[in-house]
């Protein structure tokens, strides 16, 4: 089975809109939204949820006030200053390391596992989909990314499909790292701005660090053709496949507002034609 992960470094370069367009072009695939922190793909694919499951993250400490003798040891040991002067644990600040739990001489600290999100298996008009929602202000996004990709893979195996198409998170940290392991290739969606170029270079370094082959395309290239060129030059220098360019096209936004892919909104848009061309190259490559 192949897996293509779409990432960008910088947010808002058009990853998810492009991913939705690919969803309508690709055959025999499972769709996976691994941007669990701010998942948006479902807004276009409108999945019908078939199964939902709780996501168990780490544990957090809770002090039992009846047993607590206020000896202050937990407050001394906590490196996150998560325990208040009246011995209440701030559930957001708590890292879940369990050091206070272990050392409390009164065994007054509970350490329950927290449910910190949900994951789903769904059907869409473009095929099956695995997706998830991390709770607000929660940790362990990397763990949930790994889980949702595994579930997507299982779904593909069960249904005998040979491609997993994964919408990745922005950035270069924990969730992105979790979205790269074992991927066949990543597609970096860049935008032709100084920020877009800077962030594309960093995420390309990340893909190289984890030895995942990378491809790049420049979205909205005509906003600044010089920057588009600079991104492509950088890519060639680093042996990253340059797939092509997509023009700036307000059709993307119009389609998004209707909850449609760009092809559903307009079969003949400028950007749509460029994307079809891009997809053929991707298929040939992976």
């Amino acid at each position, binding site marked *: 089975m192949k897996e293509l992960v779409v990432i960008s470094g910088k947010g808002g370069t058009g990853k998810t809109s492009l991913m939705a367009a690919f969803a309508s072009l690709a055959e025999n695939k499972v769709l996976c939204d691994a941007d669990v922190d701010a998942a948006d793909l479902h807004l276009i694919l409108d999945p019908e949820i078939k199964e939902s499951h709780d996501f168990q993250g780490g544990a957090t400490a809770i002090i039992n006030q009846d047993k607590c003798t206020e000896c202050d040891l937990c407050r001394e040991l906590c490196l996150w200053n998560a325990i208040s002067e009246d011995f209440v644990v701030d559930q957001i600040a708590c890292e879940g390391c369990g050091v206070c739990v272990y050392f409390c001489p009164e065994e007054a600290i509970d350490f329950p596992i927290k449910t910190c999100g949900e994951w789903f298996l769904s059907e869409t008009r473009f095929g099956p989909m695995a997706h998830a929602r991390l709770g607000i202000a929660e940790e362990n996004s990397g763990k949930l990314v790994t889980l949702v990709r595994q579930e997507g893979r299982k779904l593909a195996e069960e249904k005998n499909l040979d491609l997993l198409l994964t919408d990745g998170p922005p950035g270069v940290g924990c969730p992105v790292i979790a979205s790269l392991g074992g991927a066949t290739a990543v597609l970096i969606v860049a935008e032709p701005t100084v920020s877009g170029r800077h962030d594309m270079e*960093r*995420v390309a370094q990340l893909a190289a660090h984890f030895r995942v082959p990378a491809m790049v395309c420049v979205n909205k290239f005509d906003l*600044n053709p010089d920057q588009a060129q600079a991104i492509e030059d950088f890519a060639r220098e680093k042996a990253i496949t340059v797939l092509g360019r997509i023009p700036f096209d307000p059709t993307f936004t119009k389609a998004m507002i209707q909850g449609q892919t760009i092809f559903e909104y307009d079969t003949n848009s400028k950007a749509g034609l460029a994307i079809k061309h891009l997809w053929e190259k991707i298929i040939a490559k992976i």
Partner: protein
Amino acid sequence: MSNMIISIASGKGGTGKTTVATNLAVSLGSDVQILDCDVEEPNAHLFIRPVIEDIQTITTPVPQIDEEKCNLCGKCADICQFRAIIVIGETVLPFHELCHSCRGCLLVCPEKAITETGRELGVIERGHKNGLEFVHGKLRIGEAMSPPLINKVREYTRDDAISIIDAPPGTSCPVIAAMNGADFILLVTEPTPFGLYDLKLAVEAVKILGIPCGLVINRSDMGDDKVHSYAEKEGVPILMEIPFDRQIAEAYSRGELLVDVMPEWKEKFLGLYRRIEEIVG
């Protein structure tokens, strides 16, 4: 309030956080600092173009085992919640990249066989541009944990200056690290279904923290009116709207500040600050 901390956040990426943070900071002039806490993909320096005066490598403590002293009791592996230290056969193996630096293993080891070494998180670079103080963190490529580096950047918050924080996108732990303790959170969104959905998540996160917030709508004429009606319903004040303008988009693409290309925007950013001041009181 001359030492206000304003954190600029968004939920969705690419909505214009950095545009708002940099133009607001530059418009305010002196006694201002900008702290770029989007350490995974910091961009503010591309617009501020500061002269960097200090570069520091930031590390986090991770365990190092003295095999002579270790008797393989396994207590370190038991206390570690992150599977960052395990006992296999005759050795104890620390996995530095999984370590959260809680020091649990070091505290629990009865043989005092564990000492600390460092894992590099990234660098912090500091400098100035005219009167504006600049600080940002840059996460090492391959490093997964951004919150500890964000916390280090925030240690440079001065209590005699206005601090503008450029936060990362999303609503999970790195964003919380960049918003917690701020006096005001300025959310930047775009009036599209993605923008609205992620804005709702961001507003929920801000509510958990209990910090007052307001909204900037970027590319305000490229979408629908659902963000406006949501803001009204939730009582989130809309403090500024920036229409889509190809000239703005192209200036941004070259790394130019809006207030440099279209100086009339400076007064608008100062107006934005005054409204925030009124709200915070």
